[in-house]
């Protein structure tokens, strides 16, 4: 006895014409409906619409345009995932989500939002078409993808929907592959970026930009001049003093280290350099000027034994670099020029222990 056979390659397609069911076993389709095909027999398919999985029925194969998809699971419980650029898939889902909200905006008579969202939806539809047309040159494609992700993020924020977090290339971060901390930081950064864009869109209508640009135009690049006067510390061994600039908000160093070797006697190793311990941190630009906070960090690294307390001279290991202490000073005011600091000595207390560093810093 002939039976219907499960389909192997034909799993997913879209209806190219309206089809009205003519019997109990048949499934009605509207043009544009996507279907999951399960089995086939004599020019007919059996399956269900992706939008309504519970209703299964048969429909003519000639009414379906087949598309690529990956199948997960098997047998009755299988599911299909259409093979499309992930971004295109994201746009499609986003559009359907926004459309529902858009209709509610209409019924609630929120005219302005209704019109804005309508424009956003149309833009995304147009761009999605362009991506799918496959005729864009590579660089335009990348640019377009960027526009698309920006629009999606902006729209989600505008409609108070969940934030989608992306990596540098605009791909959605996979929570299984990203650490919790990176995910959190990405959320913060994305949130801030979108807020900034919304503010920008608002202020563009208010023309605040002009004054900000004028201010920054006058300071293209600057440098910080630091002189190390002394390190007062009971280390008991030779040490290295590393100085650098650090941004505590972004948790990263923004300059290289200035290294000074200090001897166990409490003076700089190279005595000739005693009054010459100077460094200039150059190439600081307007972006650094905009940082909320900049810190000057000194790290002391002890060079010698593993443990200071270890007095058994025979079994000593030497030449090991062990962290000893850290000193931090907030130099934001010096960098932004708020503090006038010519010839001013700064005294930075250390953690832990009784250490202090005297530093002479000025902005060039």
């Amino acid at each position, binding site marked *: *006895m*002939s*039976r*219907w*056979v*499960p389909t192997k390659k034909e799993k997913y397609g*879209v209806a*190219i*014409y*309206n*089809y009205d069911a*003519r*019997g109990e*076993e048949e499934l009605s389709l*509207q*043009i*544009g*409906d*996507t279907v999951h095909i*399960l*089995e086939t*027999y*004599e*020019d*007919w398919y*059996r399956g269900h619409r992706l939008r309504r999985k*519970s*209703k*299964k029925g*048969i429909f*003519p*194969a*000639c*009414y379906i*345009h087949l*598309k690529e998809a990956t199948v997960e699971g098997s*047998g*009755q419980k299988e599911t299909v995932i259409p093979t499309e650029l992930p971004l295109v898939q994201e746009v*499609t889902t986003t*559009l*359907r989500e926004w*459309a529902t909200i*858009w*209709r509610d905006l*209409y*019924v*609630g*008579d929120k005219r302005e939002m209704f019109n804005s969202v*309508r424009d956003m*939806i*149309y833009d995304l*539809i*147009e761009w*999605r*078409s*362009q991506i*799918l*047309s*496959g*005729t864009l040159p590579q660089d335009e494609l990348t640019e377009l993808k960027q526009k698309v992700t920006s629009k999606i993020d902006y729209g989600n924020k505008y409609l108070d929907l969940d934030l989608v977090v992306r990596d540098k290339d605009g791909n959605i971060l996979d929570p299984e592959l990203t650490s919790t901390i990176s995910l959190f930081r990405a959320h913060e950064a994305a949130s801030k970026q979108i807020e900034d864009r919304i503010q920008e869109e608002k202020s563009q209508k208010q023309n605040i930009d002009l004054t900000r640009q004028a201010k920054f135009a006058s300071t293209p690049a600057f440098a910080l001049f630091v002189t190390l006067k002394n390190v007062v510390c009971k280390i008991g061994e030779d040490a290295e003093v590393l100085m650098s600039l650090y941004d505590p908000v972004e948790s990263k160093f923004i300059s290289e280290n200035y290294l000074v070797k200090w001897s166990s006697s409490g003076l700089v190793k190279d005595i000739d350099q005693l009054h010459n311990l100077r460094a200039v941190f150059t190439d600081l630009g307007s972006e650094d000027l905009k940082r909320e906070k900049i810190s000057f960090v000194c790290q002391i690294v002890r060079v010698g034994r593993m443990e200071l307390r270890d007095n058994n001279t025979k079994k000593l290991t030497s030449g090991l670099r062990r962290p000893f202490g850290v000193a931090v000073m907030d130099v934001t005011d010096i960098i932004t020029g708020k503090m006038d600091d010519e010839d001013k000595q700064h005294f930075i207390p250390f953690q832990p222990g009784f250490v202090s560093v005297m530093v002479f810093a000025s902005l060039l």
Partner: protein
Amino acid sequence: MQVVREQITRTLSSKPTSLELFKNKVNALNYSEILKLRQTERLHQEETLAPPVLELKERLKPELLELIRQQRLNRLCQGTMFRKISSRRRQDKLWYCRLSPNHKMLHYGDVEEDTDNPPIETLQEKIPVADIKALLTGKDCPHMKENKGKQNKEVLDLAFSITYDVEEYSLNFIAPSRTDFCLWTDGLSVLLGRDMSSETMRSELEILLSMEIKLRLLDLENVPIPDSAPSVPKPPSNYNFCYDFSQTEQ
């Protein structure tokens, strides 16, 4: 390559009469031009409208008309400020009218200038919706018939009235704008169980429909649509399905 092919086919279709002309046309048809042409063509695809799409549009209309009805009633519940245009006074009297949340009562009353959204309790008069007999517009309105000499086209386009109760009572309105006229006449038509007919309704329906169609056709991007319905094969000789869903399905 697709772009180059398109350049050539498009230029050839305009039948240039010499190689020179052909060269010029191909050069003029650069990439950005092709993009623009494609864009307009895509827009036209929906405009030219394949028969199944037109059919789908018709099927979607009822659902979307319902949305418009809801929007109209919501607007009426919000209410509008109207003016009583009087030739004698310099300042027109203001009055407000709004529908009750349960859609059963139309409240109205005089208000001072600057009252935004007065609560229903402050409006002294009311008419039960069930008592409304007819909706009249333009020239048919009682208040337009009165001053035949003083009518102007603008006011006629904004005037509407409802008649209620057996005795020819009528409540006369002059809408502040054509949009408000459309909103109110549509809303009152809905309350009277009739079809909406304003031009605003038609344009909004078109907006809602074209959006809906665009979204439905998203998965048909780059898929050709046949001009006529594919022929339906004869029914299968058996229904011995491979999978049995009778337990999972309700």
